[in-house]
């Protein structure tokens, strides 16, 4: 497999140079030259009006795609409680199954989970594969990945989705390797293309670009899905479905890495990744005590507190509040950035929020480029005004 410029056809017109997302093509002496960093993404091939670029792919042996049908979602439970991302997966899974005229199933692993199986059916599942055994009470990579791979190989679903959570992002990559198929991480958009393939859209390069990814020759098509992007369907307790009890074999229980303890840090770590409204502060707050201002605003609005790395590094607020590349990725309905300049490392953690408000005294601060609404002004004047007016309503 390789990429090749057909010299007789290339006239050095540079169309490919402009089309290359990676800046890896240059024109030397009227001939396109492909750089070593070429990822074979293929963007240049259709861009060339002269058919001068060719990517040869020796097609791997064909898998009979028609053997595969049905949409599966991997239900996530913690301490026996189904996580909200599971219902979002059911919501999007139902849509995809509808488009493929197939069924939606949920895979549920845990201990004493019969009631949860009912919740999954109410949430949209046509059937639930239930793996119910003490060894499956807590998530463990090896038993979970072994059982899920076996079920996939046996039942051949066309699509398998899981949450892009700590659990999902540990389990699913292992399974994708075991069943030898493609996996797209952290999707924010899923749809079915005209040819029946799953179109998986996700941010890359820290949210600077979006990519739509296909798994054309392998099945199942697997993806992890970002939390709070898909819509859960309202539960319907009258829905009927069947629960398939999966037999747990002795060998399924085997694990080398063992969970020996779970430590919850609820009080300490407000999980800002879950919040619908975040008020965030940066270096512009000037001192730790000024976070009290933000807290008032957060209280008036019923939101959580976020921070830039500058504020965290200054020790004004704990790291668990940090938003950005080395902090958390958040996606609330409303994100209010106060005294934050909007460095790219901060933006990548919050720019997919539905609505962004920026309060900054520097009209040229980059945060205004991603803001839906902005106030150019001194936060020490603006925030108290906001708090007062919000309280008065």
């Amino acid at each position: 497999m390789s990429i090749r410029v057909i010299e007789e056809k290339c006239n050095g017109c540079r169309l490919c140079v402009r089309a290359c997302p990676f800046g890896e093509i240059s024109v030397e002496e009227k001939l396109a030259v492909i750089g070593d960093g070429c990822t074979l993404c293929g963007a240049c091939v259709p861009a060339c009006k002269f058919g001068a670029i060719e990517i040869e792919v020796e097609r791997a042996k064909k898998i009979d795609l028609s053997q595969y049908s049905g949409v599966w979602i991997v239900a996530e439970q913690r301490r026996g409680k189904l996580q909200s991302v599971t219902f979002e997966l059911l919501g999007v899974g139902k849509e995809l199954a509808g488009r493929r005229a197939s069924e939606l199933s949920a895979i549920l692993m845990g201990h004493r989970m019969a009631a949860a199986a009912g919740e999954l059916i109410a949430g949209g599942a046509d059937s639930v594969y239930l793996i119910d055994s003490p060894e499956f009470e807590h998530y463990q990579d090896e038993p979970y990945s072994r059982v899920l791979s076996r079920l996939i190989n046996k039942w051949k679903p066309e699509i398998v989705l899981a949450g892009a959570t700590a659990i999902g992002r540990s389990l699913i990559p292992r399974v994708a390797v075991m069943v030898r198929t493609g996996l797209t991480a952290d999707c924010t958009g899923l749809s079915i293309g005209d040819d029946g393939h799953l179109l998986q859209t996700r941010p890359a390069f820290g949210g600077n670009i979006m990519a739509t990814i296909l798994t054309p020759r392998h099945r199942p098509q697997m993806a992890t899905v970002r939390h709070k992007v898909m819509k859960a369907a309202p539960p319907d307790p009258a829905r009927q479905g069947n629960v398939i009890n999966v037999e747990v074999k002795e060998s399924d229980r085997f694990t080398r890495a063992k969970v020996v303890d779970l430590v919850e840090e609820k009080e300490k770590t407000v999980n800002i990744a879950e919040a619908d409204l975040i008020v965030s502060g940066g270096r512009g707050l000037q001192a730790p005590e000024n976070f009290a201002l933000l807290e008032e605003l957060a209280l008036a609005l019923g939101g959580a507190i976020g921070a830039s790395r500058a504020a965290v590094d200054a020790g004004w607020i704990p790291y668990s509040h940090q938003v950005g590349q080395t902090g958390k990725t958040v996606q609330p309905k409303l994100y209010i950035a106060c005294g934050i300049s909007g460095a790219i490392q901060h933006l990548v953690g919050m720019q997919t929020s539905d609505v962004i408000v920026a309060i900054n005294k520097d009209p040229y601060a980059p945060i205004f480029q991603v803001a839906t609404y902005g106030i150019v002004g001194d936060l020490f004047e603006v925030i108290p005004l906001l708090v007062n007016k919000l309280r008065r309503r």
Partner: protein
Amino acid sequence: MQIIVCIKQVPDTTNIKINPETNTLIREGVECIVNPFDMYAIEEAIRLKERCGGKITALTMGPPQAESALREALSLGVDEAVLISNRAFAGSDTWATSFTLASAIRKIGHYDIILCGKQAIDGDTAQVGPGVAAHLNIPQITFVKKIEEVTDRSIRAERMMEEGFQILESPLPVLLTVVKEINEPRLPSLRGKMKARKADIPVWGPEDIDVGGDQIGLNGSPTYVAKIFAPERKGSGKIFRGDAEEAVDQLIHELRSGKLI
């Protein structure tokens, strides 16, 4: 203790810009750095070696210029480095990348702990680490924020979860992916830099690690990038200047009519 660190060279996202006309990345003049999460993996490898002795090998798959990432690792205290590089590896997705890395690790032979970063900041997938563990059929502990204990047979580590952390124990060999909280990376020493400059870095191609055909590069990759485009910018939003009181009123009005508050 034989330690392997997988590192990736990535463009520094600080400087990435999108060409608004073509919706493509402008890479000109963009510096390449060692993936920041991999710097924590390198640091943790060095700390493990300081505790238990042994040897650290850094591994990267990438274009020839990725060699500089390996030299940076060597300057920090890594003992040996291997570059996996060949046009045949181009276009690898996470399946093919983890397969290739796992094959190289098998060739290295003896390994007790494999360290990866949590994720690479270009692809942001976090899939390669668990993928390597699956190919090698060894246990994994992802998102490690602390290694509590390590012996020549086993390890005990804390895995970061959304609501707190899990404590896991695993026999060796094991693969760990590490998060930022695990340590504070050191700077290279002058001696380290000298050593790194002179070090020999072997380059392995497909024959060297016995791979090929439909397992590597674009052919070996089940996924295929169909389209790349710029995200919708929220920007050119409404910016209120001037009188603060007026601005605040307008903002509240907008947020209320959007049913956001």
